[in-house]
């Protein structure tokens, strides 16, 4: 009888935290050239606090550049965002324990799969997690190469675009 109750309690505490307006940004700038960077502040993300599973999704067209023309080129020439409108990530935070979260950031390993332009790549990085009031703040960063996702950089601009691109994420999740 007791184990049934225990099971029921566990089921209830299997909580999900989420956001619809997470910030994902990338930097592909090379020193001495015009900065190539953009922000996407409408990223969706979900964290299952029972097992540390995470999933996030963004629309490529929602990336904002300072220069509108750069945004056009990004969508049309590099990301082909009419054909591949979404980019997503699915993964797991190793050793995640919701009870141990405090307002001091803890670092956990994060492993998962990033999918851009229909191509997937394994990502291994670290994630900083802290709990502030009723929010779970998840911050991470990792590096990718355009070639991993079949993004071709024409030789004429190759010097102006970094070979490795840094992707930074900042998600403030609330209880679903």
């Amino acid at each position: 009888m007791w184990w049934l109750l225990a099971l029921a309690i566990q089921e209830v505490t299997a909580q999900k935290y989420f956001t619809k307006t997470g910030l994902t940004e990338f930097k592909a700038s090379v020193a001495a050239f015009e900065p190539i960077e953009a922000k996407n502040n409408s990223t969706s993300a979900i964290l299952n606090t029972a097992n540390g599973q995470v999933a996030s999704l963004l629309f490529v067209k929602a990336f904002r550049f300072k220069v509108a023309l750069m945004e056009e080129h990004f969508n049309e020439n590099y990301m082909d965002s009419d054909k591949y409108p979404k980019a997503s990530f699915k993964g797991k935070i190793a050793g995640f324990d919701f009870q141990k979260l405090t307002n001091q950031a803890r670092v956990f390993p994060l492993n998962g799969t990033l999918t851009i332009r229909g191509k997937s790549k394994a990502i291994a990085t670290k994630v900083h997690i802290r709990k502030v009031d009723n929010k779970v703040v998840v911050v991470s960063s990792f590096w990718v190469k355009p070639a991993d996702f079949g993004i071709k950089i024409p030789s004429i601009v190759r010097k102006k675009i970094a070979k490795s691109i840094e992707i930074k994420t900042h998600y403030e999740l609330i209880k679903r």
Partner: protein
Amino acid sequence: MSLSKGSKIGISLLIVVALGSIIGYKMVYKPHPKTMDQKAVFVGTALDFQQQVVHRSQKWQNAIVSLKGKVTNLDKHGITLNQTIYCQLEDSLQVARVKTNALLAIKGRFIGYDDLLEEIKLDQCIITRLKDEKN
């Protein structure tokens, strides 16, 4: 005052180059299009648009839409219409004007169907009309 042929050519060249760089600069650094200035390609109720997206989400990619609906939820950055359409506002301060259950018209850009949270997502939204349920 008469100028030599050489300086006439020189001056006209200078003007052409100056004009060219101004036009070039304007083209490269053109501003982002504003939601307010763009024409909506879909005008209708939130419910109608929902139907459209279910069948042909690809067709409406990046389209500016104007939707009427009921506010079912609010958060820091946006409004949920009819439980299924999340509208992220251009100016998040505008959320304060709205209450749950209010009827409103919104103009924004359809960015896609979010299959993670199972909702339709718009960004750069502006509130074009607002009316409380009581009225």
